[in-house]
């Protein structure tokens, strides 16, 4: 049973990889590739957010803050100190993690609307600092001419190059998140969400885990930020508004915030949706809002709920009740 599962997992992974590498060959339209790449970057943020809000139950409406820290730190290091991309990315992630730690400490005492507001506050503080700390951040004009990443002598410059870069990182990120989620750590996060007190009484150092969740989500947003800086080539505080944080949270909830796959679905569907709705012109945001409301009412588990139902249906049809016991 175990062995079969393992091989099946590898098989699925292999097929996925193959499909991914075929994508830029099939989708030659740069516009679509651009949207797919953007979706990939947003997915990273949403995965982190799901670990934080979906698994651990700490709702954050300030992810744009970590995202901004990732972008600015890595871009500034590359621009001013000529750091290579990977080194800049690493430092940016550490910086974002420190921010996660800083906001995680007051957050461990908070819940519900109070926690939400604290995270909103964090996001706004970051944005205002970027806006006003002109000597370093160039203020509202933002950063221009952010260098392209270089990787073993290869220069990542076209949308296609970025596709591979982003999707290798995304694949890694998804894998690690999936491991975390399915491991003791994810289990402990879930236990804290379900009953903090009971978890503490069973020996779980709840505060440590709550702060860790903040740090992990910040790391994901930091990686996404570093990728974004090079991908967009420019960055300004306008990229990291409260509305962006709201969009990330929407992706997380619409996709299904209690699974990693949900994050992937949510980020891509909403990224595509907001582009697709362009046909409706002035009414498109009205429709977008309507879809959000409709989904949270009638699909409380998000789109992933549908996937689950499909899986159940599939296993009922073909596996005749056999269940996979290894989690």
């Amino acid at each position, binding site marked *: 049973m175990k062995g079969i599962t393992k091989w099946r997992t590898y098989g699925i992974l292999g097929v996925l990889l193959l499909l991914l590498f075929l994508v830029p060959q099939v989708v030659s339209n740069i516009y679509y590739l651009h949207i797919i790449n953007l979706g990939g970057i947003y997915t990273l943020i949403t995965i982190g957010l799901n670990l934080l809000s979906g698994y651990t139950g700490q709702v954050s409406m300030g992810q744009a803050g970590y995202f901004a820290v990732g972008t600015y730190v890595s871009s500034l290091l590359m621009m001013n100190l000529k750091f290579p991309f990977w080194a800049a990315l690493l430092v940016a992630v550490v910086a974002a993690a420190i921010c996660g730690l800083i906001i995680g400490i007051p957050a461990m005492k908070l819940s519900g609307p109070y926690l939400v507001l604290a995270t909103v506050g964090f996001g706004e503080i970051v944005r205002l600092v970027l806006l006003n700390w002109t000597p370093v951040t160039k203020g509202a004009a933002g950063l221009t001419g952010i260098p392209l990443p270089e990787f073993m002598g290869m220069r990542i410059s076209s949308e296609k190059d970025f596709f591979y870069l982003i999707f290798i990182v995304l694949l890694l990120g998804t894998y*690690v998140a999936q*491991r*975390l989620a399915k*491991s*003791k*750590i994810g*289990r*402990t996060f*879930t*236990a804290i*969400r*379900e*009953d903090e*007190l*009971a*978890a*503490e*009484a*069973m*020996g*779980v*150092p*709840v505060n440590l885990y709550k702060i860790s969740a903040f740090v992990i989500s910040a790391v994901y947003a930091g990686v996404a930020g570093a990728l974004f800086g090079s991908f967009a080539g420019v960055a300004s505080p306008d990229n990291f508004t409260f509305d962006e944080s709201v969009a990330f949270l929407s992706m997380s909830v619409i996709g299904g915030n*209690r699974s990693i796959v949900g994050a992937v679905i949510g980020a891509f569907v909403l990224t595509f949706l907001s582009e697709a709705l362009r046909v409706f012109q002035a009414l498109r945001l009205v429709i977008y809002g309507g879809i959000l409301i409709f989904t949270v009412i009638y699909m409380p588990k998000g789109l992933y709920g549908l996937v689950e139902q499909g899986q159940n249906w599939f296993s009922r049809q073909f596996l005749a009740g056999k*269940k996979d*016991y290894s*989690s």
Partner: protein
Amino acid sequence: MTEVTNILEVRGVSKRFGGLQALDDITIGVKPQTVHGIIGPNGAGKTTLFNVITGLIQPDQGGLYLEGRRIDSLKPYQLVPRGVARTFQNIRLFKEMSVIENVLIGQHVHTPTPIFSIMINGKKSRYWEEVALQEAMDALRFVGLETKADEQVKNLSYGQQRLVEFARALAAKPKLILLDEPAAGMNPTEKANLLRLVSLLQEKGYTIVLIEHDMKLVMNICETISVLDHGKKIAEGRPEHIRKHPDVISAYLGKGDLVHAGS
């Protein structure tokens, strides 16, 4: 006569909530490898006492000692590695998780968390996950729920949920298990099973403290019973002694005409 050192000592513990004296100078000693019952009417302070023992509530006065060492400044999660685990009166399971996952949380402190190995699904992570799974399954097997391992706990019956909580506490490998109304909501067969499990544990060397309303059960399995009423300990002793104690009868059956002194 050799004095057995108590595994748990509650010395003169008091706790006040606003205007309510929830615990009033309680002193209780629990001998190792015994089943110790705590009874009393609703609102007598039994659960508060459990909360104080497990570190969820800080006492206003008094001290708590586990195997002679003072524990009353410790946080709940620090008590588990020292061998204290509990269940809750109104079942506090992790509802959106499966049975085995619930029990695995009980096992939390006994396996390391190799974070980097987890991230890459390394050998170490898989090894410890396997160990944890085996131990959790042992605990589930002990309570007879191994076939329900992958059920969602919310789909289990009330009695089964109590057993899951019991297994979760066992998975923490405690020396001292505190059970808060373990039989509430169980049918007679389930109760009999619980009774059997508790005596089995006692034989294995565990110490059990339980709060229970089912007198038959309490009288059957406890060596010592402490009776609380309005935050005070009004009696303590062997079951047959408690059964005849006039204060106990009046407090418990609420014979209004027997208003005793001191209340």
